[in-house]
């Protein structure tokens, strides 16, 4: 009987909520679409006013109540995308994702952040497998578990930070956010290093780890070296006016370094394949793919807002720059 009453009450409450929502929907849709118009227009107040009235009428013309809300939400999403593009100076979400994954060497903080994300996130994915494959020890259920878990949890905000570090391209962003991107990136790297440290503790209990560990360390060293290189040489864009554009010597050095690091990563990948350590191979191949972009081949397509070079050619998808010497 209690279940019956509960179900009756729930159905009544649900009906009332839906009914209320239907009545509120047009009002909410109007508010949403007006907010969307403002976001769409940006600083153009006249356009915002025009679209506020026009879209409000469009929503008014849409049949149904919830349909109005759906259309308003669609307008809002469109405006959000447009505002994001305008703010970040990007052409499309796809290109922003591509830039987040493969940023160029122009921004040191971007390079550091992305490398850190790359390493940290892959660590998060790799080490649970490693932990599972290793023999249980007194440490396994407690500290490593939490560290691996913490690393995984970190990977989520770090994924966001990858985008943030990509956004450091934009000169419109305040310096605080650039610093934040870099700080988060450093945290990612430290967390990765911490997990490695824990893994070292576990080596004694797992003979297979003794094979894996040097490879991980090698790969990590490569990553750290890459970041160190890009930071040391200062391939930051002169967007803050404090760093000079890279010279031809810098670029040449970086190109050679990137080749060595790619070869190193590929060697680790080969070892991973030979020893049937699939995830290691995947990580190494990913690193090999990311490194040349990361370290910068001046002939690779660059973003439009690169102030280090002269714009040679631009298209909808990429822009080619010649470095200023």
């Amino acid at each position, binding site marked *: 009987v209690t279940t019956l009453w509960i179900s009756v009450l729930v159905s009544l409450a649900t009906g009332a909520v839906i009914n209320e929502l239907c009545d509120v929907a047009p009002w909410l849709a109007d508010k949403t679409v007006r907010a969307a118009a403002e976001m*769409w227009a940006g600083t153009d107040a006249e356009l915002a006013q025009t679209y506020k009235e026009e879209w409000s*009428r469009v929503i008014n013309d*849409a049949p149904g109540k919830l349909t109005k809300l759906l*259309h308003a939400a*669609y307008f809002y999403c*469109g405006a959000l995308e447009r505002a994001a593009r305008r703010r970040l100076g990007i052409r499309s979400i796809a290109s922003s994702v591509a830039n987040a994954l493969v940023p160029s060497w122009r921004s040191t903080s971007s390079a550091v952040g992305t490398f850190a994300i790359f390493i940290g996130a892959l660590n998060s994915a790799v080490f649970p497998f490693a932990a599972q494959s290793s023999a249980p020890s007194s440490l396994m259920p407690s500290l490593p578990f939490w560290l691996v878990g913490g690393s995984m949890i970190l990977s989520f905000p770090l994924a966001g930070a990858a985008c943030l570090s990509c956004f450091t391209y934009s000169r419109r962003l305040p310096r605080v956010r650039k610093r934040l991107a870099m700080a988060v990136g450093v945290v990612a790297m430290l967390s990765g290093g911490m997990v490695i440290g824990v893994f070292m503790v576990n080596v004694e209990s797992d003979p297979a780890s003794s094979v894996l560990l040097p490879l991980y360390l090698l790969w990590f060293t490569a990553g750290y070296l890459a970041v160190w290189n890009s930071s040391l040489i200062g391939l930051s864009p002169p967007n803050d006016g404090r760093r000079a554009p890279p010279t031809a010597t810098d670029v040449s050095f970086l190109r050679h370094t990137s080749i060595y690091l790619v070869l190193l990563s590929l060697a680790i990948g080969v070892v991973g394949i030979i020893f049937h350590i699939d995830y290691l191979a995947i990580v190494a191949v990913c690193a090999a793919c990311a490194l040349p972009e990361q370290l910068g081949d001046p002939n690779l397509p660059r973003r439009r807002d690169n102030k280090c070079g002269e714009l040679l050619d631009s298209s909808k998808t990429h822009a080619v720059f010649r470095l200023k010497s």
Partner: protein
Amino acid sequence: MSDAPTRITVPFLDVVETFLAAGNVELHGWAIIKASRRGGPTVYKILERLTQMGWVTARWDDEPSEPNKPRRRYYILTGEGASRARALLAERRPQTVPFSLRPGFGGGNA
């Protein structure tokens, strides 16, 4: 003088086709969204492009039939815009070019 479209997409053609199908009739936002079966933001992006290209002109409804509601904004192809749109559709969608008895001088929609 109207410009040529720099990027022709399927939604762009849909919207252009909607205008051509309407002939001399002015279309408001919801009518375009409904007829082209495209989302609001998509349609308005294209309308902005068409307006910048000079293919389409817009005007407010000065005498709204429903005074308590926000005004509608009406869009219509310009003469040159109509002829260019017709040529574009003939090139891209030859089977769907709307048949019209109107003479094609100046695009017919001026």
